[in-house]
C-alpha cells in the first residue's frame, strides 16, 4: 500500500533523497531549490539518514565534493538551480567525463541576467550537451518517482553517467499537491545498494581517475560516453518497467496523451504538460483532435521514437521554456525537427518560446497554440515557424 501524502515538489525531492539515503550529499542553497538541502540537512541532524552532509561554500565545490565522493566509491547527490548550475559548469563535464553516476535534483529557474528567480528551462538547456542524463517531471509525483529510478539508471554498468531530475521552480517546487509515496523499505529494496566496479578506495585495485587524456584517447572516450548515452535509453525503459510493477505508475521515454488519433499536437516538458492535458480534453469535447507529447527523457534524446509518434499528425508546435537566442527556435524545437527530418517525417512544425522568467502560461494561451495549429495543418509549408507565446507586444 502506498502512502497518501501532500507535499511540495521540493519536499517530494527531499523525501526521495531521505529514502534513498545516499552516502554523501553536498549542496549550496539557491532559490528555488534551497529547501531540498534544507530539509535534507534536518534529516541528517535528526539521524533519519546515514548520509555525510557536506555544507560547501559554493556550487562549484558542491559538484567537486560529489565527484570526489563518487570517485571514492560512494553514492552522492546534490540539488541546485539556475546560477548554481552555472557555477558548477566546469565540474558538470568532469562528472560525466569521469563516468560518475552522481544524481542531481535540478529545480529549473531562469539563468541571470537580468536577475530573475522564477521558472524557465534556461539552466537545463545550458547543460544539455554536457553528457548528463536529463529527466523532466510534470508534477511533484514525477519528481519523486524519477529520483527513485535515477540511481538504477545512472549506476547501470552499461551507462555510468550522471543524471539530473528536473522540475519547474515554484510552479511545482513550491506548490503543495497530492502525492503517493512508497514505504522506506520498498524504496531501499528498489534502489538497491551501490556496488561500484572501480573506485579509488579499493585497495585491491589501485586506479587513476581523471588523468590527462590527449590526442590518442580522448576521442574514443567521448565516443564511449555517447555510446553510454545511447545504452541509457533501454536501461531507462527497463527500470521504468520494474517501477511500474512496484507502483502501478507507468513511465516511458515520453508520454503520449490522446496522441494516437490526434491531428494537431503540442510537444512540451514539465508542468505545462498538465495544463495542456486539460486543454486537450476541452478541445476533444468540441470534436477537435488535439494531442500532447510530453518529453520525459530529454537526454538521451529519443529521436526515432518521437519522430514515429508524431508521424501521423498534420501540425506540431514545440514549446520551449528557454530561448536559444539564435533566431531559429528553441533547443527542444531543434531536436524535434532534426529527429523528424532524419526519420523522414514531414509535418509542419513551429517553435513557441514561452514562460520565460516565470511568465504564467494559461489554458487560454495553450488553446491559442492549438488554434494556430489548426490553421497550420491546412498548409503545406508554414511561413512563420519562430513564434512567441504570452509575450507582451506593447
Amino acid at each position, binding site marked *: 500500500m502506498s502512502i497518501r501524502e*501532500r507535499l511540495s515538489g521540493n519536499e517530494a525531492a527531499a523525501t526521495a533523497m531521505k529514502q534513498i539515503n545516499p552516502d554523501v550529499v553536498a549542496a549550496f542553497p539557491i532559490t528555488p531549490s534551497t529547501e531540498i538541502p534544507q530539509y535534507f540537512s534536518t534529516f541528517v541532524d535528526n539521524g533519519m539518514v546515514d548520509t555525510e552532509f557536506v555544507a560547501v561554500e559554493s556550487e562549484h565545490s558542491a559538484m567537486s565534493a560529489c565527484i570526489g565522493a563518487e570517485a571514492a566509491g560512494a553514492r552522492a547527490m546534490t540539488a541546485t538551480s539556475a546560477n548554481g548550475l552555472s557555477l558548477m559548469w566546469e565540474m558538470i563535464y568532469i562528472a560525466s567525463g569521469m563516468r560518475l553516476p552522481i544524481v542531481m535534483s535540478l529545480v529549473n529557474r531562469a539563468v541571470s541576467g537580468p536577475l530573475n528567480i522564477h521558472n524557465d528551462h534556461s539552466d537545463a538547456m545550458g547543460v544539455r550537451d554536457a553528457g548528463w542524463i536529463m529527466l523532466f517531471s510534470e508534477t511533484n509525483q514525477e519528481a519523486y518517482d524519477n529520483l527513485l529510478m535515477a540511481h538504477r539508471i545512472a549506476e547501470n554498468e552499461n551507462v555510468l553517467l550522471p543524471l539530473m531530475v528536473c522540475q519547474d521552480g515554484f510552479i511545482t517546487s513550491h506548490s*503543495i499537491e*497530492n502525492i503517493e509515496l512508497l514505504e522506506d523499505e520498498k524504496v531501499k529494496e528498489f534502489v538497491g545498494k551501490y556496488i561500484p566496479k572501480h573506485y579509488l578506495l579499493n585497495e585491491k585495485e589501485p586506479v587513476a581517475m581523471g588523468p590527462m587524456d590527449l590526442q590518442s584517447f580522448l576521442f574514443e572516450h567521448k565516443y564511449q560516453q555517447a555510446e553510454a548515452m545511447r545504452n541509457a535509453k533501454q536501461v531507462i525503459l527497463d527500470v521504468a518497467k520494474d517501477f511500474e510493477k512496484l507502483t502501478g505508475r507507468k513511465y516511458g521515454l515520453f508520454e503520449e496523451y490522446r496522441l494516437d488519433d490526434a491531428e494537431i499536437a503540442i510537444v512540451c516538458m514539465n508542468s505545462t504538460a498538465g*495544463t495542456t492535458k486539460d486543454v486537450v*480534453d476541452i478541445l476533444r469535447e468540441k470534436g477537435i483532435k488535439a494531442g500532447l507529447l510530453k518529453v520525459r527523457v530529454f537526454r538521451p534524446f529519443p529521436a526515432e521514437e518521437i519522430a514515429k509518434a508524431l508521424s501521423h499528425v498534420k501540425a506540431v508546435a514545440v514549446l520551449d521554456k528557454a530561448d536559444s537566442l539564435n533566431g531559429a527556435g528553441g533547443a527542444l524545437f531543434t531536436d524535434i525537427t532534426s529527429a523528424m527530418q532524419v526519420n523522414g517525417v514531414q509535418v509542419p512544425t513551429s517553435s513557441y518560446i514561452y514562460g520565460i522568467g516565470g511568465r504564467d502560461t494559461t489554458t487560454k494561451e495553450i488553446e491559442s497554440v492549438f488554434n494556430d495549429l489548426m490553421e497550420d495543418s491546412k498548409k503545406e509549408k508554414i511561413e512563420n515557424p519562430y513564434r512567441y507565446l504570452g509575450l507582451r507586444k506593447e
Partner: protein
Amino acid sequence: MNNMVEIRWHGRGGQGAKTASLLLADAAFNTGKYIQGFPEYGPERMGAPITAYNRISDTPIRIHSNIYEPDYVVVVDDTLLESVDVTAGLKEEGAIVINTTKDGEELKTLLKGYKGKVYTIDARKVSIETLGKYFPNTPMLAAIIKVSKIMNEEDFIKDMEGSFKHKFAKKPEVIDGNMKALKMALNEVKEVK
C-alpha cells in the same frame, strides 16, 4: 474538472496568507480531496501585496497556472481594496470574504460593482480577543471554510486541532488561542446585505 473549487488569497507579506492557503489545502486534503496550495512569489517583503491560491477537487488536478477566474476571493488586508483589483475575474455565483470593519456602502464602492455575495469579518477583533496579537490568517481560514462550504465545520475544527498540534509542537501554548480564533471566526463572518 467540473467540481473544482478555485480560491484566490490577497494579503500583505507577513500576514500569513500563504500559510493560510497551505493550511486550507491541508484541511481539504484530510477530507480526501485533491488539492493545490501555492503562493505567487514576487519580491518577498513585509507589507508587499501577495497572492496565494488554492484548487480543491474530487479528481486529480493537472492544471499548473495561476487562477484568473476564482470561485472565491479572500482579502486578508482591506487596505488592498484600494490598490489591487481583488474581484478581477471573480465569478458572480461565487463570493468574496474580506477582513474589514467597513460597512456595506463603503465596500460597494471599493468593489467596483461586484454582483456576487460579499462577506466580512473583523479578523483583528477575533485575533486580539483569542490570541492577544494580530494574526489575521487563522480567522480568515475559518471564514472561507464557512463561506465556501468545502468541508463541514465540525470536521474542519477537528482536523485543525490535529494540524495545530503538529505545527505548534514546540509552542503548545498557542494551540488553544488558535482553536478559539477558528471557532469565534466561524460565528463572526457575516454576509453584507
